[in-house]
């Protein structure tokens, strides 16, 4: 076996995993805290990608520099949606939350087609196709940057949840709502903030996705499925787990293409999912049940 090729495939997998991780971060957060499996998560990534596209194509704002704009705009969208719509199902049975977020994903997707048309788009800053050569290895620049953003955001999320008052309140609410309320946490605002952060992360992920892939209104559903798998593999308790889950998935998919065949990438990733559910049902970094 060609060692250079294997090393290249591993690098590809790690970069892909970083992108996966940042896409899944918001889904895992919302799932862990609000107990809502947000089936519209991929649709929000799609909206974020279009936002970046318009910022870049319309106003000339670099997609990486525009990420904070994405995050803030999508945070506001998420906050408002949670207060107005999703708060209705926070304590409802799982089925209701699935139904409402599925409906949301359908509505967002079709509104996106009306607003943006079915044209394929790409966010194509001059450096998007550049790469850095390391001997025989090639590091795609946009993916490297996306990977860096993913690591920074994951660690920032981790520190935020662990160290800040708001972050602790979010974790406390996830662990024990009654106790958190006794300590003065106002759940309505807190839930909306958490959902807003989740959607803000999806918005940022969309901007990154658009620089390495093509965008159309229908990319959401498959991305949601990926994020779902990563959240389960990584666990919901810890953003670092999500990063690990993304990396595991990225590397396994890349290796599966090399050794088994390209049609088996999804089979391999869902096999890992099943394996994790059997062996470590709370995720790779999750605490024992």
């Amino acid at each position, binding site marked *: 076996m*060609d060692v*250079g*090729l294997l090393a*290249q*495939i591993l690098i*590809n*997998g790690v*970069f*892909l995993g970083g992108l996966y991780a940042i896409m899944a971060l918001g889904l895992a957060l919302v799932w862990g805290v609000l107990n809502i499996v947000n089936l519209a998560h991929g649709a929000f990534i799609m909206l974020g990608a279009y936002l970046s596209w318009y910022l870049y194509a319309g106003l000339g704002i670099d997609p990486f520099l525009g990420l904070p704009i994405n995050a803030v705009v999508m945070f506001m969208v998420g906050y408002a949606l949670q207060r107005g719509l999703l708060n209705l199902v926070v304590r409802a049975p799982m089925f209701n939350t699935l139904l409402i977020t599925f409906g949301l994903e359908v509505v967002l997707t*079709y509104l996106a*087609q009306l607003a943006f048309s*079915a*044209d*394929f*788009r*790409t966010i*194509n800053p001059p450096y*998007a*196709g*550049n*790469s850095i*050569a390391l001997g025989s290895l*090639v590091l*795609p*620049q*946009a*993916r490297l940057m996306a990977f860096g953003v993913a690591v920074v955001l994951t660690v920032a999320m981790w520190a935020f949840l662990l160290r800040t008052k708001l972050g602790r309140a979010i974790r406390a609410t996830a662990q024990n709502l009654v106790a958190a309320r006794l300590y003065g946490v106002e759940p309505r605002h807190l839930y909306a903030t958490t959902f807003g952060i989740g959607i803000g992360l999806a918005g940022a992920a969309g901007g990154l996705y658009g620089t*390495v*892939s*093509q965008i*159309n209104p*229908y*990319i959401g559903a*498959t991305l949601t499925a990926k994020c779902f798998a990563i959240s389960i593999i990584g666990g919901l308790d810890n953003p670092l787990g999500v990063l690990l889950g993304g990396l595991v998935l990225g590397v396994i*998919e*890349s*290796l599966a*293409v*090399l050794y088994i*065949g*390209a*049609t088996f*990438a*999804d089979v391999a990733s869902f096999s890992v999912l099943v394996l994790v559910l059997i062996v470590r049902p709370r995720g790779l970094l999750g605490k024992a049940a």
Partner: protein
Amino acid sequence: MSNSRFSVAGAILAAAIVLGWSTAVSAADIVLGASVQLTGPSANTGRYYKDAYEFAIDKINEAGGVTVGGEKRKLALKLYDNQSDVNLSVRQYTQLVSKDKVDLLLGPFASNFALADSAVSEKYQIPMVQGGGASDQIFSRKFKYIFGTLAPASNYFGTTVKMLKELDPAPKSIALLYADDAFDVSVAEGTRPLLKDAGLSIAIDEKYSSNASDFNSLLSQIKSNGTDVVLMAGHETEILNFVRQAKSLAVAPKLYSFTVGVPSEDFRKALGADAEYAFGMAAWLPSADLKDRWFGDAAAFAKDYKAKFGYDPDYHAASGVADVEALAQAIENAGDTDPAKVRDALANLKLDSLYGPLAFGENGQIDLPQIVIQVQGDAIAPIYGAKGFVGKPKYPMPAWNAR
């Protein structure tokens, strides 16, 4: 009466218009039924068929319509949106023939749809002329009521392989990549023997999942193998990702060619300068030599089409127009709208159209040679046709950092 009730009624009306329920149909009209992808993942190409069908029907009606037994009759279209869902499209075709009682059928886009939907036309014995499905599977079942105006999928790369043998420096090894659906599998199955006969070795032969968005592993293998030529049969979304990722991994084979995307304006818009050098194929180019009864010629058609819809027609649109024209001419030849008579007229049809000479083979499929094309600058250049080179190929493709 509150305003909200009006707005609800308005919304329902709007939905009805969108879904085509309100298509005006007068008693004497000959109704053609179709279900195409107006929404969902295939909407990007599906809409070409809607535009093409409507454009052709309007044009034929402007010219007075179709002469049936000495009487002029207009054509009408009954169109549903199948939301890119095969199962829904089968139900809609069933509804078109059983409930809406349309006279004749036009097809959906894409082979897997045509494959499923042609079972309906066969069962109810209503001829379907479809220009969206090229897979050989559609025509290998001895169905009598399905006619296709796309060239056979198995031969999509036929002209390309011929060209490969005449290129200098001669390419040696080939990577064949294809998606796991009816059309692309047919392309791959047809291409393998062509490559073998041409003495070219297949270094990589890989099927991938239709929704794949990451090609980094495959690209790294192509680079590591030093493969000269990549032939890829897939969907436009995958091909866009493939090209972008090839650039970011600095993978530049001597030549790559794609079954779809390259002829469409959308492809060049999405990729910008990176679309350059991409090879593809088209069974149709808007040439003034292709004379047409209703549109004058193909060049005039392309001009009118662009003026009306704001984008250049590619072979999908021309194929869709050819479907309507084939039905119109067959009705006139049969002198009747009876499905069985129209079916026989279709089988014997000989019509020079803007799409090329329309004549269906024994299996119902047309046979048109593909023309190899390449993106050069911001236009499509014809490179290689049935009689050899018709343009100068930009070959081999330079490295990405040398452009």
